[in-house]
């Protein structure tokens, strides 16, 4: 099959379209998360989405409609646990993450009927994305991108030096909550693409690759977005032609870019 025929498949077009949006928001948010040493929040929230998807399947509601609010609540919970209960951020992520997984496993065990559906979310499959999921992905991605655009300098300042940001009147608590809520939305959108197990890679890899190459924050954001976008497009293409799992292929392409960036930095 040639590339032109490949591009004419509607499921490929849908995957490219939704994947491009999700790739860009993952990389943009990922940069803030990596620089705040919050990379693993994506991992924790994806585990919560496992529990939420199980709940959706259990009560017979479209899983994403449960996962979106549940993961957003969990993201705020992570912030509040680390603030109020004097628990380190990584431990707070661990607590919420474990509860999410445990809840999902218990629901899967007592339902005895939807294990196959649930486990398909573990590794995702963007080639099987539905029209509803494409529309949902695009709308929510536009929301996330708009928030990043309007709060760009607030996010930048609070990430660079939170204490100083406060002295310039920036409400850093609000910005931190906003960032985790956006991350929650992004994680749920990414689950369909690469699956629960690999979501954090989409947030982390483009960002750390860009950090090897960039000579400025804006440049880093542009590089991360481009690498993420190219990785998704190449990942979908390679996975189709080589008959490989799509999510895992996208992550491996991202990882190859990261390796190349390190080599480039060493040489130049």
């Amino acid at each position, binding site marked *: 099959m040639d590339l032109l025929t490949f591009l004419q498949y509607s499921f490929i077009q849908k995957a490219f379209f939704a994947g491009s949006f999700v790739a860009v928001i993952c990389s943009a948010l990922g940069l803030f998360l990596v*620089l705040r040493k919050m990379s693993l929040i994506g991992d924790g929230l994806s585990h919560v989405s496992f529990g939420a998807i199980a709940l959706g399947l259990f009560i017979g509601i479209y899983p994403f409609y449960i996962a979106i609010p549940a993961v957003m609540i969990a993201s705020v919970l992570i912030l509040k646990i680390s603030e109020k209960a004097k628990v380190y951020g990584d431990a707070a992520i661990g607590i919420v993450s474990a509860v999410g997984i445990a809840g999902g496993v218990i629901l899967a065990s007592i339902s005895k009927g939807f294990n196959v559906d649930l486990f398909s979310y573990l590794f995702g499959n963007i080639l099987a994305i539905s029209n509803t999921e494409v529309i949902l992905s695009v709308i929510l991605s536009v929301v996330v991108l708009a928030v990043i*655009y*309007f*709060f*760009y*300098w*607030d996010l*930048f*300042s609070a*990430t*660079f*030096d939170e*204490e*100083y*940001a*406060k*002295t*310039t*009147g*920036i409400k850093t608590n609000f910005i931190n909550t906003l960032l985790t809520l956006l991350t929650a939305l992004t994680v749920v959108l990414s689950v369909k693409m690469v699956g629960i197990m690999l979501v954090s890679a989409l947030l982390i890899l483009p960002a750390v690759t*860009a*950090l090897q190459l*960039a*000579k*400025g*924050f*804006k*440049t*880093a954001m542009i590089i991360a977005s481009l690498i993420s976008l190219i990785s998704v497009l190449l990942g979908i293409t390679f996975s189709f032609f080589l008959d490989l799992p799509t999510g895992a292929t996208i992550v491996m392409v991202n990882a190859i870019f990261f390796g190349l960036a390190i080599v480039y930095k060493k040489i130049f």
Partner: protein
Amino acid sequence: MIMQTIIETKNLFVHYGQTEALKNVSFAIDRGDFVGLAGPNGAGKTTLIKTILGLLPSSGGQIELFGKSKANFNEWGKIGYLPQKISTINALFPATSEEVVVLGLLSQKGFPKRIIARDLKKVDDTLKELGISNLKKKMLSELSGGQQQKVLLARALVSDPEILIFDEPSTALDPESRESFFQLIQKLNKQKGITVVLITHDTSYIGQYANKLLYIDKSLIYFGKFSDFCASEKMNSYFGKYEQHIICHQHN
């Protein structure tokens, strides 16, 4: 001539849990003052400044900034702040000097914050004034301690502040850089009339630059002119002759 009070605290108390960090601290800093804020380690110097800036809550007393109670104050662009340690800034952060200095303008922006050509010109002018235009496109993490400090000074200056607050600015500097950095601050104070508050635990050199001394050790020990401090019998008996001499020997 009536002096305008820039910062005033009245009976200020700050607690960390059950521990009293500041006790009944009252003083008023006037426009044009160069105040050395000194005291031993753990005396509450940084706590005092952070409370004034709203980074820490007070447990009692009042703070007024430019004649307004802190709760009603929102002109943060009037205050330029240079925090204690450059190390609090993420070393991996890929920010250029220009991007860092832009952050100093955010206090003047509404929502959404937009940086326009006029702002970038202001950044250029500030970098030029400090003689570091060549660092504009360089990443902060690639600069020396002294250069980083100058970029952060540019960030504090870019909003045309009326008061500059420095928290141990010499920590990252070698003696030569420290000398030129303090001369620069003194120039800003004398030529532009910018009020300066400079925190230091090293009192041996502050008298060279400051005209007032604010000495705290949880509570206020002394606030007033440096010359009065050096002539004070009361301070002599508090500090001892040797310590008072150390603080005063470089003050003209």
